[in-house]
């Protein structure tokens, strides 16, 4: 179907201040493409997972700013929106191999977290329902594990940083927590080490060469005949 049916309702949206009428039922991203925008930045997986399409919008008549991912949120009548393809945020440079999982590491690299007001604006800005304030607070008191676990779903869309009144960039703090947690605190996988050794020593080379040498049809057949373990 290349054209919406005539009976589809249209809704008013405002993109960067200009009014448009778009069919109801489209996501913000689809609606903007319907209008004629072509995304060369600010679009990625289109599946709510990469964080590229962070959007801030306001509903007519309501003073509150709201946030969403453009590829997930459906347009509504009276929506004033602007997409934020890039959140300007400074990531501190560090060598993870030189860091240690001490309680002070967050304050040393991101001292601004001490300015956290516990206002919860970051949590409200998060399109992934992450308790952002709670993981920033966990980092503030040096609880690496808690900060890592709570921030797990973060896609670094930048909305929390854009809205934080204290100038904190929560997603970089969460990133540091997860990196420290993964590298220094979680148990190491022995199987992974073994497998990497096997790969390095060429155990799988012959099989991979065979696959590379196959035609597209052969690969398709192979794929269709694969055995899926349930």
């Amino acid at each position: 179907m290349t054209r919406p049916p005539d009976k589809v309702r249209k809704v008013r949206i405002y993109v960067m201040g200009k009014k448009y009428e778009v069919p109801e039922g489209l996501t913000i991203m689809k609606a903007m493409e319907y209008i004629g925008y072509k995304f060369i930045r600010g679009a990625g997986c289109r599946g709510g997972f990469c964080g590229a399409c962070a959007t801030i919008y306001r509903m007519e008549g309501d003073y509150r700013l709201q946030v969403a991912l453009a590829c997930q949120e459906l347009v509504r009548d009276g929506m004033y929106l602007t997409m934020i393809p890039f959140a300007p945020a400074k990531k501190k440079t560090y060598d993870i191999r030189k860091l240690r999982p001490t309680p002070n590491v967050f304050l040393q690299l991101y001292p601004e977290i001490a300015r956290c007001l516990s206002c919860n604006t970051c949590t409200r800005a998060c399109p992934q329902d992450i308790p952002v304030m709670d993981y920033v607070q966990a980092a503030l008191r040096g609880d690496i594990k808690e900060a890592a676990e709570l921030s797990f779903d973060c896609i670094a869309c930048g909305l929390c940083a854009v809205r934080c009144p204290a100038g904190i960039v929560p997603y970089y703090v969460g990133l540091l927590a997860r990196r420290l947690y993964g590298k220094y605190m979680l148990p190491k996988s022995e199987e992974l080490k073994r497998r990497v050794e096997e790969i390095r020593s060429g155990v799988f080379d012959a099989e991979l060469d065979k696959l590379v040498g196959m035609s597209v049809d052969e690969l398709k057949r192979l794929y269709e005949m694969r055995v899926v373990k349930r």
Partner: protein
Amino acid sequence: MRFPYYPGCTLKSSAVNFEKTALASAEALGVELVELPRWNCCGAVYSLTSDDLIHHTAPLRVLIRCQEAYKGGLVDEPRLVTLCAMCYNTLRRENAAVREDSERLRKLNEFMDKEENYECGVEVVHFLTILRNLGLRKISECVRQPLDGLRVAPYYGCLLLRPREVSVDDPENPTIMEDILEALGAEVVDIPYKAKCCGAYHGLVGDEVVAELSYRILRQASERGADVVVLACPLCEFNLGRQEVVRRRYRNFKPIPVVYFTQLMALAFGLPMEECGFEMNRIDPRPVLEKKLYR
């Protein structure tokens, strides 16, 4: 008896020895301090501006967490116990402010619309108050290793005693720590500077103020024959416990060990010396403790 316990940031980092020994002492006394399952920094400083409500969301949120814990049946009373005097000060003043000003409470509740409304049912107390309510007799009864022979100088600092409305004791001449330490068997050395400022955050911008004020306090304790100075707040420890700033300015200054009252309490209640966290105290108190207590 289960009380809601609010640690505050410092108790989880530079003052874990304070927390550990406080929890151990409470347990010996039959008191359970239940850490709030979810908490945030109290904001540290109680904001004095009258129109800037954003700085009041942090402490109010802590009070709401306590309310949640009480309603959820995790604790028996909504009396929030703190160990850090600064947290105590901030939370207690916030509680008083919203109880007095219903408009302020309404605005804050509305702003924090993802939280349940704070209903002003929480009372904020310092652990010292809980101990006083338990009674000195109960404390004496739990003593296994009296601190006989140890001369201690309690120091209160500012935040436990000022402003008057939140003071845990007489702000000019408090005795609550003295009473507890005597119940533990120690000999109390009274220092007139026990309720005077140590310099607080001035240390962030320069040495002079902290050096002079802390020096006066510590020297007075030494001159009066104290073996250790005893604290009830981890922020006092920043200035009085870490004595480098004083030593830089006063070359003849002789360091004196500084401990938390719960470390001495836990020791008196029978906790082995190795478990009282003395390795975290900047000036090692173990030599003098061993000399005075374990002859």
